[in-house]
């Protein structure tokens, strides 16, 4: 109930709000998106179609959306959190029932004008809901078992639905984002320690059981885990993509092969080069310098969010800002780890750069709320 703690009068009103927007953050987002346009232009072989131009329109729309969201007071967003979460959950169920099948998984609903991926929406609304939950929950109860179980259920229901699609990448992101929200809210260390221990124990047990009488998984399941964890063991199948991706990255060297000169992407050795693997094209064509610059831009976005969150004394606002920033971080960290061979390939796009409509719009929606929290922060 922290909004009662300060007077709304200190908050800017009307068109003046526009002056209070976190402009450096908006600028950074635009810069990253521009890198995305450039790379989409390159992977299309020097053409705005089919990806770059569409992406630009979406970003323009998304940017306006972000600003619109930023103008709406943050308490409005807090108040609709529950409705938003329930709505996303309903959409996830709808996808389960009527969704179209794309890439072998049931992920989106065709709305006619755009394809909506409820799982994308869920990433933001889950953060909203958890921020609102901990804003509502008296501080003293945060670590009480009953009040810990509630957010766990709130996280696990959408995770279950997403896993059924199946979309492992999103499920992992949801769990991680939810976990981070609980951590930020101050849930006791012991819970995390317990979960970590249990997880490690379970994994160890599964692997130890291999080849014994009490084997917990079938042999083929073990083999799938093997290729999942170490794609190089299957260089022509699952490993092919990651091998080609590493070759593209590595061959970029210090300064890259030059704009539109990347042979790996030009000659189609790279998979999904306009979506999940777009970072490899950037790294191939602009080298270490280009790759580390993008990483730097991403890091700056997170830093600006964190500083905004630290400066915000409103509990919902700062939790939400931290949460959105963490989700954003998870996106690019998982994507980069994936293409650099540090993590198994799970379909996670590179935020703001990969081609894709709903992911970008929803991310900008999230940043819109971050801006709103920034504009409407207690002063």
């Amino acid at each position, binding site marked *: 109930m922290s909004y009662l703690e300060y007077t709304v009068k200190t908050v800017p009103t009307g068109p003046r709000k526009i002056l209070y927007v976190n402009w450096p953050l908006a600028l950074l987002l635009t810069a990253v998106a521009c890198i995305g346009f450039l790379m989409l232009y390159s992977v299309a072989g020097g053409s705005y179609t089919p990806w770059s131009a569409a992406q630009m329109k979406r970003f323009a729309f998304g940017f306006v959306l972000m600003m619109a969201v930023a103008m709406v007071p943050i308490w409005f967003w807090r108040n609709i959190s529950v409705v938003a979460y329930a709505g996303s959950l309903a959409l996830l169920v709808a996808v389960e029932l009527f969704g179209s099948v794309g890439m072998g998984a049931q992920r989106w609903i065709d709305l006619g004008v755009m394809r909506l991926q409820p799982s994308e929406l869920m990433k933001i609304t889950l953060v909203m809901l958890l921020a609102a939950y901990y804003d509502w929950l008296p501080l003293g109860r945060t670590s009480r078992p009953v009040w810990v179980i509630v957010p766990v259920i709130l996280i696990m229901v959408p995770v279950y639905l997403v896993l059924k699609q199946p979309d492992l990448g999103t499920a992992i992101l949801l769990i991680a984002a939810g976990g981070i929200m609980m951590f930020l809210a101050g849930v006791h260390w012991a819970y995390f320690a317990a979960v970590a221990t249990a997880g490690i124990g379970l994994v160890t047990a599964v692997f130890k059981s291999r080849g014994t009488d009490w084997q917990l998984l079938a042999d083929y399941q073990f083999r799938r885990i093997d290729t999942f964890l170490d794609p190089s063991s299957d260089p022509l199948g699952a490993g092919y993509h990651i091998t080609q991706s*590493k070759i593209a990255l590595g*061959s970029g060297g210090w300064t890259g092969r030059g704009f539109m000169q990347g042979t790996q992407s030009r000659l189609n050795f790279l998979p999904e080069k306009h979506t999940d693997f777009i970072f490899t094209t950037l790294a191939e064509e602009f080298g*270490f310098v280009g790759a580390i610059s993008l990483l730097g831009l991403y890091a700056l976005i997170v830093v600006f969010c964190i500083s905004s969150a630290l400066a915000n004394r409103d509990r919902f606002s700062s939790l939400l800002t931290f949460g959105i920033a963490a989700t954003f971080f998870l996106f690019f*960290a998982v994507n980069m780890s994936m293409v*650099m061979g540090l993590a198994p390939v799970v379909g996670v796009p590179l935020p703001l750069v990969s081609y894709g409509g709903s992911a970008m719009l929803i991310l900008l929606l999230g940043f819109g709320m971050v801006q709103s929290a920034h504009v409407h922060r207690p002063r």
Partner: protein
Amino acid sequence: MRRPGRETILSHKRISRRGLILGAGQAGFLGLLGWRMRHLQVEEADQFRLLADENRIKIRLIPPARGEIFDRNGLVVAANVPSYRIMMEREEAGDVEEVIARLSQLVELDPDELERAREEMRRSSLHPVTIADRVSWEALSRVAVNAPALPGVRPEVGLSRRYPMRDEYAHLVGYVGPVSDYDLEKIDAPDQLLLIPRFQIGKVGLEKQREDMLRGKAGTKRVEQNAAGRVMRELSRREGEPGKDIQITTDSALQSYINARLSGESAAAVVIDCETGDILASVSTPGFDPNLFVQGISVADYRALLDNKYRPLPNKAVQGVYPPGSTFKMVTALAAMEDGQAQPDDTVYCPGHLEVSGRRFHCWRRAGHGNVDLQQSLRESCDVYFYEMALRTGIEKITSMANRLGLGVQHDLPMTSVAKGLMPTKDWKRNTRGQEWVIGDSVNSAIGQGFTLASPLQLAIMTARIATGRAVQPRLIKSIDGVETPTGRGESLGLNENNLRQIRRAMFEVSNNRRGTAYRSRIIHDAFRMAGKTGTSQVRNITAAERASGVVNNRDLPWERRDHALFVNFAPFDSPKIAVSVVVEHGSGGSTTAAPIARDITLQALFGEDPPLEAYPSKDRPRIRAQQKKLREDQLSRAETEGDRA
């Protein structure tokens, strides 16, 4: 501004603390990502650059043009002709069956080949697969015009071997065929070219023996390929080296004439230039069409060739060995004279047989020849005279003379399985048969029977050596890429010229004396008189019973049991230019079958065209005129069918 409540401050502190911990964790992870980037892009960059190049840059071979083969007059014997084929790539085709269905409306597709192509496409989607080979130019253009409707289909032009003279050179030049796994097994470090599917290599004959110089060296081109294996552009190119052109010593007109003249027989003939050792013609009949083998022969065609009792596949002229029969008598006579065991006017009495250690050896004339000297014995081919000479001289000296004259030795010629033949010695019999030499063996060898075996080529060489007194060496390759090879003129054999003259004179008598065994096949033209020797070699033992009931006429025997007919000759007598040998398998008699053929060949070779009828004995002229007419017609019709095919 209102002062915030205690709980708000606490909460803010807690969130800030946790947020900073989270931020620190994120910073740590960012560090890990940066480190990984550095590792991949800076430390291992060179290795990955190499891998990227390996990915995209493929080295493709450019097959060289195979050297062509010409005859001594520059006529093409083995040519390269464009061969059109249709390739298909699954990845580009999309719906393979749909494309094949459309293609089959334009080109006739062989169901077997189609099945093989489907199989190959299932195995690899990246590499183009041959879907139709040897298609016509018209079919190829139909495919090219309809290219937009045929994704993944691509017409290709390559070179293929073509033998315009067909069976006339089948044995001498041989043929090429698609390289097989069996071929590859025999080669230690195969040329990259051989790994090209269906690459043509020499399988038999000159094509095989001179494969090294005919093949040439592959060029290479570096091309950039995309992930689907499609060539995007050529980066660089290194030209190969075409194979060397080979000119052979044969005269195609003569080769063709002999083929026609021998048709219908299982026979072989060799014509050698006495001066240079050039093989002017080397024919084995029946022949076969080497073009059948070029793209791989069908099982049915191959079966037919194997089942033919006249054995078309082996080159009888150099691979076939036959008892030389009476054509060997010059060797025995020369050996005896060189050894001082015989003087030209010494006579031997021939009662029709000779008793040697209790065994009776018969002369071909049962009544006997009476007293015969060297001239007479060769002219009339008296066997007893040579039995006697063998007894006097001994087998070792005869065999050594045979070897000097080119029998029983392997001649170095670029042809398949050049036979060594066999000239026996006592050691040879002991080593191979485990038996001691008996005097009867010498007696049989003296008239070219028993263990002796020689090929038509060797007999021609023997005749050339007798005619010139020099160790004439056969030569098949006249020049390589225009560079002349050394001739086979040869050094003097060191034989007594008088003895040689006696032998040559006797051979002249064979075909020019009324009593000579080949008198009927003489040449009337004075400048081109020929000297020869007939031979009839038994392929069976004549039993005592047969002899008692009178020797059965050869014509009444089944073909396989008839005698081989042989004839060797050189001409013109005064200054020998050519030496000829003819062997007609189971041809019954040297004088009746082989001599007329050899005479016709000799005249054809000396005149270089159809000889005037005046060169023939008047009795023969009507027959010869008919024969010439028929052969001309045959050759014409063959040329026409060849024209149709080309």
